[in-house]
């Protein structure tokens, strides 16, 4: 399962809900969701504790927010082509809205 999160953990509980409910697989952070993947953010500790997920973040959305050089270790940055590949690789995707 590819879990897509598009809101900051400071704005919504969608990352928490995903981490509590999803059984594993991958998490793709897009839009304001990318803030969770930045060093020193509240999302960093949460994502580090959730080792069963492989975590990706959308590069263009990191760049749009000036966060491209603050990505935490263990997160793979992808472009929109990588986003498409992730959707294709996983049997289903869930947008946590």
């Amino acid at each position: 399962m590819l879990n897509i999160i598009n809101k900051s953990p400071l704005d919504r509980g969608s990352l928490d809900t995903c981490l509590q409910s999803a059984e594993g697989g991958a998490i793709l952070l897009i839009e304001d969701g990318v803030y969770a993947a930045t060093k020193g953010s509240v999302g960093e500790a949460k994502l580090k504790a959730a080792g069963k997920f492989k975590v990706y973040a959308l590069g263009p959305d990191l760049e749009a927010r000036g966060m491209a050089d603050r990505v935490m270790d263990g997160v793979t940055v992808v472009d929109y082509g990588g986003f498409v590949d992730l959707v294709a690789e996983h049997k289903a995707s869930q947008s946590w809205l």
Partner: protein
Amino acid sequence: MKFSILINEGPYTHQASDSAYQFAKSVLAKGHEIFRIFFYHDGVNNATRLTTPPQDDRNIVNRWSKLAEEHKLDMVVCVAAAQRRGIVDEGEAKRNGKDATNLAPGFRISGLGQLIEAGIQADRMVTFGD
């Protein structure tokens, strides 16, 4: 691979409409097929041809119409969501006694069955919203 896309947010709101557009373009660039793009809830506002964004801003509605024309995309607007928000084609104008239409080129108004079919027929369904 066949993709379907569901868009639940209007244009110029947060980022869902822009993300969905960039995603759709990349799906096509990668050689995949888009079975259908379905606009639901406030997403139906992507389909009004009456928007006039500033000249130096992206025109989200026209951008969808152009993409649909270039790639023969099936872009479907939910009829009940459209009626609530005043998105009208000629058939709906006649049926509901409206004096104008505003559905942008490349879109068509239909029912939720089209969303279910999109989920069944496509290999992958991705939702964008807020």
